[in-house]
């Protein structure tokens, strides 16, 4: 991986530890089952303590220090190592525990997100994007599963061999494990393409959508190709003099792309802030979406400023990508539903833009008709009451284009219809009364009908009903089912009625 660790962290060894070099111990007895004879006398024994990148390590075995005493120089070095200070010499954050905690947390989060993706995202509208996201998330889950298994195995081997466990060995897996690198590249590429498609959803105009695709896809391809070059080309790795600036550039390029994505999502959430705070749940989701897209730039800053654990951004890259695609997707779905609900209350049903040529003209015509209606009824106050209640206006933010002054204005007039209006208390009570009355009357009416039936009084009524039904069937064309008529809005006189 071309993370910051590949070009950073020249663990300069500002302090050198004597125990990491060979120590002459003089003559003495050597005891050990690896020797040909268990006990051997040697004239000159040389001892070199195990060091990790020129830093001393201590036995992690439970009873190591009690059973076998360390050499004095090793104990001294270890005590010096514990009291060190400085940027590269943090005691806890460079240990193995934060790394193990990070990658296991990473594993749990990625797998949970993948499960949620498979449960929540359906294939209806954005078929290919959702499949791409599912596939990307699946690959990253498998990748992280393989990585966790290998990392734990490596820790076990290290412990068995040297009695220690180092964070460096796990971090080196990120660069040395080819399977991890390939799967990571594929999954990140897929999820970045999903991000482009998500950005594509944010723009309403066709031209903007096209530009988004034509700019986003090449940027993603370039970013991933540049990422792959230093990772897979071993020749380049060996000549850092010529290609030394490529890995940090690619790393920054990726961060710049994810920051641009974060900027776009954040500004979109600001534009749609009215919908974002529509309900408590939506507010939480909006906050989560903004936080998750900002996570990658924030992790970059923590990485370069050594705020916590080095390479933490590298550990969480895949999780960040999966999270920033899925959570933003879910948030957009809900946002669009809210927006569509509001737009449905208007006459046009959705905003129309000038690049939709024909639809735009029809929309403008419809609005003109609607305004003509509005003006007409405004003049005549009595007539207004005749307008059905579902056309009467309520304030909303549907934007329509005014043909006169050619600017986009918010029309809060007759071009809006409210379907889901909360009825008044009085209305609810009235409705309940009517419903209970109908429910009460139903058995009474039924009983009455049975009584009449028994008395054979219904024969005449039945005949009338059948005749009326025949007229209606003829009128709506049910007697000739395979013919379709398109009527004008002229007054229609049904010939069948005359017959």
């Amino acid at each position, binding site marked *: 991986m071309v993370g*910051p660790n590949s*070009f*950073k*962290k*020249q663990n*300069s*060894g*500002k302090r*050198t530890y004597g125990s990491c070099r060979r120590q002459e111990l003089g003559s003495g007895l050597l005891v050990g089952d690896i020797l040909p004879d268990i006990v051997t006398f040697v004239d000159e024994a040389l001892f070199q303590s195990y060091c990790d990148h020129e830093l001393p390590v201590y036995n992690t075995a439970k009873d190591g220090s009690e059973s076998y005493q360390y050499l004095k120089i090793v104990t001294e070095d270890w005590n010096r190592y514990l009291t060190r200070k400085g*940027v590269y010499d943090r005691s806890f954050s460079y240990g193995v525990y934060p790394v193990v905690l990070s990658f296991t947390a990473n594993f749990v989060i990625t797998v949970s997100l993948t499960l949620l993706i498979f449960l929540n995202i359906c294939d209806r509208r954005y078929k290919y994007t959702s499949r791409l996201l599912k596939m990307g998330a699946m690959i990253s889950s498998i990748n992280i599963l393989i990585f966790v298994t290998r990392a734990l195995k490596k820790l076990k081997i290290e412990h068995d061999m040297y009695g220690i466990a180092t964070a460096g060995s796990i971090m080196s897996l990120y660069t040395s494990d080819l399977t991890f690198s390939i799967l990571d590249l594929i999954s990140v590429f897929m999820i970045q393409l999903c991000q482009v498609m998500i950005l594509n959803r944010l723009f309403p*105009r066709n*031209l*903007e959508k096209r*530009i988004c695709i034509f*700019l986003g896809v090449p940027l993603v391809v370039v970013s991933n190709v540049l990422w792959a070059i230093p990772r897979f080309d071993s020749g380049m790795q060996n000549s*850092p*003099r010529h290609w*030394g*600036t490529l890995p*940090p*550039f690619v*790393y*920054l*390029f990726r*961060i*710049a792309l994810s*920051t*641009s994505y974060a900027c776009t999502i954040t*500004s979109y959430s600001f534009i749609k802030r009215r919908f974002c705070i529509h309900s408590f749940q939506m507010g939480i989701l909006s906050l989560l979406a903004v936080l998750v897209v900002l996570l990658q730039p924030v992790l*970059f*800053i923590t990485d*370069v*400023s*050594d705020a916590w654990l080095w390479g933490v951004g590298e550990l969480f890259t895949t999780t960040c990508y999966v999270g920033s695609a899925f959570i933003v997707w879910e948030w957009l779905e809900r946002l669009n539903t809210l927006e569509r609900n509001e737009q449905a209350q208007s006459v046009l049903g959705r905003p129309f*833009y*000038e*690049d939709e040529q024909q639809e*735009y*003209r029809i929309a403008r015509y419809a609005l*003109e*008709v609607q305004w*003509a*209606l509005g*003006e*007409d*009824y405004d003049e005549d106050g009595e007539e207004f009451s005749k307008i059905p209640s579902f056309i009467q206006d309520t304030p909303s933010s549907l934007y329509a*284009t005014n*043909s006169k002054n*050619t*600017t*986009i204005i918010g029309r809060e007039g007759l071009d809006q219809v409210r379907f889901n209006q909360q009825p008044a208390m009085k209305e609810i009570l009235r409705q309940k009364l009517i419903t209970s009355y109908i429910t009460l009357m139903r058995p009474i009416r039924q009983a009455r009908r049975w009584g009449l039936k028994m008395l054979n009084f219904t024969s005449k009524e039945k005949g009338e009903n059948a005749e009326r039904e025949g007229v209606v069937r003829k009128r709506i064309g049910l007697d000739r089912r*395979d*013919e*379709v008529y*398109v*009527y*004008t*809005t*002229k*007054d229609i006189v049904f010939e069948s009625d005359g017959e």
Partner: protein
Amino acid sequence: MKLAVKFCLALLTVSLIFQLFAIISTPLSSIPLSTSPGFEYGVFGYCNTNIHKCSSRKIGYSLEFAPHPMPPNKVPTLPSGLKYSVTKLLVVHPLSFAITLTLYVLIFLMSHQQLANSPMFLLSIALFSLPTFLICLLSFLVDLLVFSSDLCWPGWLMLPATIVIAVCCSLLWNLRSTVSIKNYETLQSSRANTIETHSMHDWRDRTRIPSIIRSDDHSKPLLEPELTYTSTID
């Protein structure tokens, strides 16, 4: 329209000034982009304040006055722990300045009425603003990576410069869509408007008048389609 152009120009002026501070940093002036004990770093080189000497002015630091590494067999590193070769990335600073300046000139051309109403010109400016934002952002990220916590105020000024360009960028895209709508409407109104609209008074009067008298065009129904047909489904 003119106000938007002026606002964009003002924003870009601020961004250019902010970027200029980083460009003219040490060794061109005494403003450091980053400092460490005994050293001052800039875009085109660094100065050793102990011996009062500066490195040659070029992109990518030379090792002539670099601090002696410990142990001596190692390569000298920057205070952030990076090798000196990474400083070649600071090339994005002059690049960003040049691109922002170009954008400034292009927006300045928008004060010309004919160009300001050209959707293609506006689209190209809006498109050009995207790499401007990306490179300005990259300059800030490079500063952060190379100097990390030792970054001085000219480096941090790159962040507001990037935000300002982002605002300018969104403004340009909005301007483009507004001009696009305006042009479309002008085009439509210049053509003969074939769609007739009638007042509701005429419509209602029509219903009152007997059908024989309704022969003139003016009293046509509001939404009468041009063709009426009957067909059968096979």
